[in-house]
């Protein structure tokens, strides 16, 4: 992602969630509340810093995106109105919105085929955007 793309995504996450990740004081009340904590690779208290640091790529490709139960505990208890549950939900929506555009259609593949592209990449591309 270019810098501009990252900035755009950060803005989009802020807009969708209505939350300001800069308000996070890293108290960890979210992670201390989360029932899915042990399933997550990126922990709830880290969501805000991933966004602040522009590491959107890691966030949207994290397991946490799909492990969040949307139980709202962190949203209810966050003392700083950062509400990590809303942030991760916004990241999830970002992925969902892009799905259509990024979807790899089978008929397009011959055109994309290039001797330099490893087969594995194509397979993983299918997997990644599989419903």
């Amino acid at each position, binding site marked *: 992602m270019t810098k501009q793309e990252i900035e755009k995504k950060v803005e989009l996450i802020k807009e969708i969630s209505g939350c300001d990740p800069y308000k996070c004081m890293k108290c960890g009340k979210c992670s*201390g*509340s989360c029932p899915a*904590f042990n399933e997550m690779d990126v922990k709830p208290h880290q969501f805000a810093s991933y966004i602040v640091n522009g590491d959107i790529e890691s966030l949207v490709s994290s397991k946490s995106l799909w492990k969040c139960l949307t139980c709202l505990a962190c949203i209810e208890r966050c003392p700083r*109105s950062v509400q990590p549950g809303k942030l991760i939900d916004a990241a999830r929506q970002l992925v969902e919105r892009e799905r259509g555009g990024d979807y790899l259609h089978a008929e397009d593949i011959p055109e994309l085929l290039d001797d330099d592209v490893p087969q594995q990449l194509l397979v993983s591309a299918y997997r990644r955007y599989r419903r």
Partner: protein
Amino acid sequence: MQRIGVFVCHCGTNIAATVDVKKVVELVRFEPGVVFADDYMYMCSEAGQEKIIAAIKEHDLTGLVICSCSPRMHEKTFRACAEKAGLNPYMVEVANIREQCSWIHKDREEATEKAVILARAAIAKVNLNTPLQEGESPVTKRALIIGGGIAGIQTALDIADAGYEVDIVEREPSIGGRMSQFDKTFPTLDCASCILTPKMVEVNQHPNITLYTYSEVEGVSGYVGNFDVKIRKKARSVDMSACTGCGECQAKCPLGKMGKIPSEFDRGLRTRPAIYMPFAQAVPAVPVIDRENCTYFKTGKCGVCAKICPSKAVNYEQEDEIVTVKYGAIVVATGFDIINLDKFGEYAYNESPDVITSIELERLMNASGPTGGHLERMSDHKQPKDIVFIQCVGSRCDDEKGKPYCSKVCCMYTAKHAMLIKDHWPDTNITVFYIDVRTPGKNFDEFYRRAVEQYHVNYVKGQVGKVIPQPDGSLLVQGVDLLDNKQIMKKTDMVVLAAAVEPNKGVRKIATMLTASIDNNDFLTEAHAKLRPVESPTAGIFLSGMAQGPKDIPETVSQAGAAAVKVVGLLAKDKLKTNPCTAKCDPMFCNGCSTCANVCPYGAITYEDQQVRGPGVNETRRVAVVNNALCQGCGACTSACPSGAMDLQGFSNRQITTEVDSICR
């Protein structure tokens, strides 16, 4: 026609970086009345002031316009400077081209234009200025302290020791405040009572101090040096002069054994009788009857306390008494309480008696507390083997549940609690969940480190999400260790919440009576955050202790001393200069309608019959008269007056419209 001098200050680069000072000088030179204009790096400096004095003499100036910082900052300086050169100080106007211009603009051209406009308005005003004379008002050499906690006690003692009379008004039956509830104090672990009780006794015995306990301030009128304060002495139902404080009545009150009335002093951890002293060392050692709960006052039957009192001090007929006392200065030392925890349901405070606040823990550890200083769980009276402390409960919150500020004292008292518990019961396992450990202060961080290094208190960086009471009576704590990146599920016996502090509930009412400003959190505002930290912007009102902001005991005592010095500085004066910018009524136009008297917040306007003579008028009629000693120059009457008879000296209607005209020119 005035001969006006205009002086434009660079204020280093504060003004000069955004405003073209030289250009301002060139442009204002041609304004009507201006005979001299100049600029200087720092107008308020000695050299700058000398420049002004020289110009006044050389050019025979009759009025000055200083284009500089806010008049709140240096108006006094420049007025004194004009006076030195023989000019009436009220012939000086300050055009604020720093706070209201250079600091808030980025574009140099726009800022310069605005600075010229502001200068022009001030010049137009000075053209209409008239010399004003300051009056004098006497100073009542007596101070009032509202609140009898450690802040109020220390302020009172310092003022009284300086030789002035002081009254303390305390809402509760005894002085002592929050500190009297504490067990030990950080960082030296002196016992709170041991250091507080002697001060309470000293206050009680000091010839210059009068105590009004179980009393409240009902109304305040007047102004700096001359406040009239109405104090309601609530009926104690016990004759203060007859009572010996023997305590018989408390012991025999039938309600005491029924255990129905929670003791406020013990935060509801034990009950008290209807006739009671809040604690054994209470000052004065005279009980009060809580009339809301007393059987005699509810049903007319009982009367046990009156019957058994050996000195016949109990008096059911006693009534509230209202006294009015004059004071020169008032100190607000109303203190703090902790927030209500109803909104923090996740910590199960209302569900489990073993989830307690830190003040409750203080009572549980206090030798005179409900358990005699033996730490035990309120549910089964067993000694807890494992305790979890949760920091920042309601502090540093961004939402409406808590407070945005750091409560400042919790990190230290938690370290204190942990060490005291470990000292008594070394096998107790203690975990502290913290966000940051904030221990700035002399010997403070060393104190906290001792808890970790010497007492092996387990500090976990992270917060608790939920406390879940278990069927077996224990508490399950779900939290996180952020440094380990692991969630913690831990069974414990007791949870202690470091609840945020907040100003005492009554402070809003008191601030309103005093016209002293408070901030969004109900803390009293200081006149200047850095340079006048113990004074309210309202003259004659001073601040002491937690009422002004979170602070610990050492800081409170220092601030109390500072407030006392300010009070003494005021009381030491025999006379105060009064503001000559007061309202004035032109009897020619006044029709005695009373509108002005109705809006006057200071009660400065009265009416009298006056002979009014003028073109076509010669009659005796009722007109408004302003008491210059009471008038604070707020201007409410001038805008309310329907006939335009009321005018404010120094800010006359004509002066203000001229200023507006010159801005719009």
